C-alpha cells in the first residue's frame, strides 16, 4: 500500500517536471528536469521491481538510470555547451498560455483514460492519465517550440511517457527489447546532437 503511494508520488513528480518544463524557457533547466524526470521513472520501475521482485524490472531500472539519467543528459549538456545557446526564445504560444494548455491536456487525458479504462483492465486509470498527459504535453512542447533542443526534450518526454506506460501496464518489456529501445534512443540523441552542431555550423557559414 505504502509502495503504491510512493509510486504515485513518483508519477506525480514526472508530471510536475513536465509542467515545469513547459513553464521554463531555459534549456539547461529543461535537461536537468529531464534527468530528474527519468530518475523518477527509474525509481518507479525500482518500486515495481521490489514489489514484484522481478529481475526484468531490476534490469530495466539499471539501464534506465544509465541511459536516461546519466548518458543522455550528459551528451545534451555537452552539445549545449558547444552550441552556446541556453534560452528558448522562439515559441508559437507564450509560457502562460502553454501552461494553461498543459493543464487542459491533463484534464483531457484523464477523460480519455476514464473512457478507455472502463473496460475493467488491471492497470489504474491514474498511471494511464499521467502517462497520456506526459505524452500530450511532450507533443505540445514539440509543436510549440521552435528551438531544436526543445524538440529533443519534447521527444524525450514522449519517450518517457511511453516507458511509463510500458512499465505500468506491464511489468516492463523483455530486457532485450528494452535494451534495444534505449540504445536506439541514445544513438538518436547522439545523431541529433551531431545534427545540431552541423546545423549551427552551416547556419553560421
Amino acid at each position, binding site marked *: 500500500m505504502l509502495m503504491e503511494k510512493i509510486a504515485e508520488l513518483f508519477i506525480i513528480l514526472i508530471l510536475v517536471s513536465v509542467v515545469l518544463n513547459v513553464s521554463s524557457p531555459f534549456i539547461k533547466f529543461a535537461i536537468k528536469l529531464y534527468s530528474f524526470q527519468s530518475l523518477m521513472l527509474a525509481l518507479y520501475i525500482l518500486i515495481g521491481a521490489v514489489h514484484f521482485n522481478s529481475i526484468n524490472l531490476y534490469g530495466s531500472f539499471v539501464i534506465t538510470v544509465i541511459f536516461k539519467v546519466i548518458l543522455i543528459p550528459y551528451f545534451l549538456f555537452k552539445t549545449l555547451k558547444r552550441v552556446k545557446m541556453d534560452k528558448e526564445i522562439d515559441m508559437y504560444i507564450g509560457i502562460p498560455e502553454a501552461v494553461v494548455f498543459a493543464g487542459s491536456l491533463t484534464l483531457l487525458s484523464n477523460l480519455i483514460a476514464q473512457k478507455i479504462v472502463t473496460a475493467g483492465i488491471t492497470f489504474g486509470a491514474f498511471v494511464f492519465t499521467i502517462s497520456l498527459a506526459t505524452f500530450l504535453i511532450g507533443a505540445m512542447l514539440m509543436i510549440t517550440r521552435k528551438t*531544436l533542443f526543445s524538440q529533443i526534450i519534447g521527444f524525450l518526454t514522449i519517450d518517457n511517457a*511511453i516507458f511509463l506506460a510500458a512499465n505500468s*501496464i506491464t*511489468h516492463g*518489456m523483455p530486457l532485450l527489447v528494452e535494451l534495444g529501445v534505449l540504445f536506439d534512443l541514445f*544513438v538518436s540523441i547522439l545523431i*541529433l546532437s551531431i545534427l545540431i552542431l552541423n546545423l549551427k555550423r552551416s547556419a553560421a557559414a
Partner: protein
Amino acid sequence: MYELVLILPAVALIFSVFTDVLLMSYLQLIISTFVFLTVVAISLSFHAITVFFGGLFFVDYINLVILITVSILELFVAFYSFGYVRTEIKHGLSKRKFKFYYFWKNLFIFSMMASIMSNNLGIYWTGLEATTLATALLVSFNRTKESFEATWKYVIMCSVGIAIGLFAIVILYFTTSQVYGESMKSLSFINIIQAGSELDKNFLMLAFILALVGFGTKVGFAPMHNWLPDAHSQGPSPVSALLSGVLLNTALLGILRFYQINASAGIYYPRYFLIGFGFLTILVSALSIIKQKDYKRLFAFSSMENMGLIALGFGVGGIAVVGSLFQILFHALNKGALFLSSGNVLAVTHERKIDKIRSLSKHFPVTGLMLLFGVMGISGMPPFAMFLGEIYIMFGVFKTNIWFGFLVFLLLIFIFAGLFSKILKMYIGVKDGENGQQNENKADSGTRKGKQNKGEKEIHPFMLYVPLILLLISSILLFYMPSPFLHIVKSASAEFGGKIIF
C-alpha cells in the same frame, strides 16, 4: 541459409570499417550478389514459415516478398554505387566520405533485413529505428544546410512516429502477455497470430491505430509525410532509391503485421483506416506534385502516392492485395530506376532544380529516356510491370465502390500530369526567357556550370546500365513472371484473403 541474409550484411558492415573504398566497392558487389542469390535460393525452396536464430527471426510469404524486393534493389544499388563512387571521386569527393557511405549503407541494409525478418516485434521496432538512424547521416551526406535540415526533420519525425509505434507494441505486449505471460513469447509474431482470437479486441484496435500512425509516419502516409520529400530528395541517389523503394515497405510491414493480428482476432475495422490513409496520401500527393521544383522531390511524392496505393490495396482487400504485393516489388524496381537515373543527372550537373535542367535529350539521351520511361512505368503504363499492380489494385477499389475508383483514378491522373509535365520539360524543354540565343547560353551555363560538352560521357557506365536493366526487368516482369515468385505472392495474398485472377 536463412541466417546468411543477416550475416552477410553484417560482414559487409565490418569490412566497410577496415577496407579501402575502391576495394570495398568490389566487396560490396560480391556480398550483395550473395545476398541476392541467398534470397533467390530461399524463395526457390520456400515451403512454409521458417524460424531461425532461436525464434527471433522468421521468414513467411509476406516478408519474403519484401525480402526479395530489398535484395534485388540492393544488388542494383551496389552496382550503381560502384560507378557512383568512382564518378564522384573523379569529381573530387574524398574517399573517406565514401567509406562512411558504405558503412552507413551496410548498417542500414543490415538493420532493414533484421527488421523485415524479425519475428519479435521488439526487434522489428529496434531495427526500424536503427534504419532511421543509419540513414540519417546518409541523408545529410552532402553536408549542406538543406540536407541537415532535412535530416533533422527526418530523424525527429520518424523517431516520434516510431515512438508511437513503440506505444502500440507496448499495448500489444500487454494484451498478449495475458495469454503468454510476460516473456519474449508475447512479442513473437507467430505466437500472437496463433492466439489471435483470445486477445482483447479493444486493445488490439488501439494498438493498431497507434501502429498505423506511428509506423505510418515512416511509411510516409499523409499528413505525417512532411519529412519524406525532403529526406528522399537530399540523400545521394542510390540511398534515395533504397529509401523510397524498400524502406517505406519495411515500415509498412509493421502496419501489416498489426493488421494481420487484428484480422486473426476477427477485427476488420482496420481496413477502413488503411483505405483512409491510403486515399489521403494519394490525395496529398496529387495536389502537391505539380508545385514541386526539385526533381527528386517529385519522385518522393510519387513514392508517397504508391505507398498510398499499396495501403489502399491492402485496405480494400481481395484481388487488390495481390496488386499491392506486386506493387511492392515493381514500385521498388521502377522507383529505383527513376532515382538512379536522376542520380546520373545530378552527378554531372549538381543541380536539383527542375527549372535549371533542360534538353536532357541532347546531353543525356539515355538517362533522359530512362526518366521518361520511368515516369510512364511509375504511372502504371505497360510495358512496365506496375501496370499489373495498379490494375489489380484498381480492380479491388472498383469492387468496393465504382465512384471511389473513379476518384482514385482522377488523382492518379493528376499525379501523372504533375510528374510527366516536369520530366518532359527536363527532357526536351527549352528554358524560359526572352529570346532564343540568350536561352541557349543560360541553359548551358545553368545546366553544366561552364563545363562544356559534358554530359552522359562523364559518368561511369554502370550508372547508365543499372537503371536501364531495372526498367528492363520491370518490363519483362509484365510479360513473364517467374513462377516461384508468383507462388510466393499468391500465398502471401492468401493470408490477407486475396486471390490471383487470370
